[in-house]
């Protein structure tokens, strides 16, 4: 299992569109992906659960990834967290 913490850069927070991109990317991976923010842990493959985290700009988000291709998933998803989305 790997964990790593990222700071969200997107000024509008990490909401609908970034979450959509994130969840679609996460769903491509066979491993278990948990997203932790402000003490709450949810399934990184569920956009609804991700929305309920209310991730704002500059929030710290921890990814907890376990299973096949976890390193690749960490790299891909970490990049999405720090990227500026439209």
């Amino acid at each position: 299992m790997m964990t790593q913490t990222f700071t969200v850069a997107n000024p509008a927070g990490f909401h609908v569109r970034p979450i959509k991109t994130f969840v679609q990317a996460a769903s491509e991976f066979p491993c278990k992906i948990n997203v932790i923010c402000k003490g709450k842990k949810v399934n990184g493959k569920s956009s609804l659960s991700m929305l309920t985290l209310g991730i704002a700009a500059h929030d710290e988000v921890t990814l907890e990834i376990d299973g096949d291709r976890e390193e690749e998933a960490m790299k891909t998803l970490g990049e999405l967290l720090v990227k500026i989305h439209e």
Partner: protein
Amino acid sequence: MTQRLTGIAASPGIAVARAVVLASEEYVPVRKAVTQPELETARLHDAIREARAGIERIRDATEQKLGAEKAAIFEGHLLILEDPDLIETTESMIREQSVNAEYALHVTAQSFIEALTALEDESLRERAADVRDVCGRIIGILSGKPKRDLSLLTEECVVVAADLAPSDTAELNLDVVRGFVTEIGSRTSHSAIMARSLDIPAVVGAGPGIREVSDGMLVAVDAIEGVLLLDPSPDELAAIMQKKAAYEMRRAELRAWAERPSVSADGHRVEIAANIGQLEDVQKAIDNGAEAIGLFRTEFLYMGRDRLPTEEEQFQSYKYVLEKMAGKPVVIRTLDIGGDKELPYLGLPQESNPFLGRRALRFCLSRPDVFRPQLRALLRASRYGNLKIMFPMVAVLEELTEAKRLLEEEKQALVASGEQVADRIEVGIMIEIPSAAVSADLFAAEADFFSIGTNDLIQYTMAADRMNETVSYLYQPYHPSVLRLIRHVIDAAHAAGKWVGVCGEMAGDPTAIPLLLGLGLDEFSMSAGSILPARERIGSLHYDEWRTLSLQALSMRSSGDVQAFVQDRLEGRDEK
């Protein structure tokens, strides 16, 4: 008897038509025990499949009508349909409690709706409407009560509802729906956003008073003021129809300027740019026909948080704006902090006179640990568009040369490390301190451009804090002393072959525009909403004539005299 209600003007315009009232019944499924949970799970999946077809239909129709960006919300709805947490929780409830599918889905959806509604961010709270919309559709199918179809409306109408679900809004038949009114909602509700993209007048959050509206009642929606008139009198009706005609004519006139270049009536070309303070503003600037970003205030990256932004965060923001402007100039101003803008996390000492204190470039030069990362982020972003870097609050030449030296050092270091940096990046300064204005010729040799920050320049020239009401009469943009400084700056820059902009409020001020044009200003940078009226005004002015008139203004005795002079001239021209 006319009733008058007020709400939030969510999408501007005026609509007058008979009301179609949408009943706001929300169907709450009843819990039923089932003997074969697996049958319920199968029903659930059938209903999801059917709902998918419905949403895809709406998405395609929206895409055709409004484009892919507006249809994206329904992509989001499709994502909710296949959300693993939503489906798996519903399935396990069906299985473990042996209940009917619609009830299990209702309970599961409700828990997500509650979690979303509890969030601080308003746009996230609005997502609860998506869940309600999508799950309502599935539950409707499961219970044999499918959603009403708003595309079937055939008579001209104003739609009145407690709230409109996104799919409701998307299905409105725009050939007949003139506007809509909702009881709840805000400027950022789905229905409000949709109304703006569909470009139909809407008043939201009008309150429970709208329950008085009955089908067929005449309703006047004034979505400029956020007012509704239920059953207006003939006089009121005539007044609002007149207002509607005037508004629509003015709007069409202004829209026409979005596509045109900024040229005076006698062919003198200038540039109209937008001031932006956050990334969301870029789209608005583009929509209003901005030819450039004349001032990108970077403070938003630093404020409202508890530590400095990283170089990477800054880089991403600058890159975003540069790419979005697709090669058009983007003037990014380095951090202008201090004065009234504090960064508590830096723990800076209180100053007795912060506007005359260590603000903006003065602060940055004293804190290379803050300044250098911003310069690096700017340099790294430079290859994604047409970047121009601007330093604020320059008083003496040494400050500019020092800032340029730091910039060059960072550039060399980046290039040495293999980073790509644009070959040529224009570096300019804000002219807001009288010393810089008076000695503009000295700075013109060192800077690639000037942008006059008139708000501060006026305040420093008059030595009057414009927030202080007792001296606010001294805030006089048209005073000859201000105009003379501006003229001097423009002439000095032009003599050195450099360009000059104004990025203060004067640039978009209808009275100041003729004077600035006449003095030879090259770039007018203003808030996005001022661009079209400004371009229209410039198009009506003769540069040659205002070259003479603006010089006359310089020798007048007061700001009031200048203002009256300009007004007279403008009105004289209008009569021709």
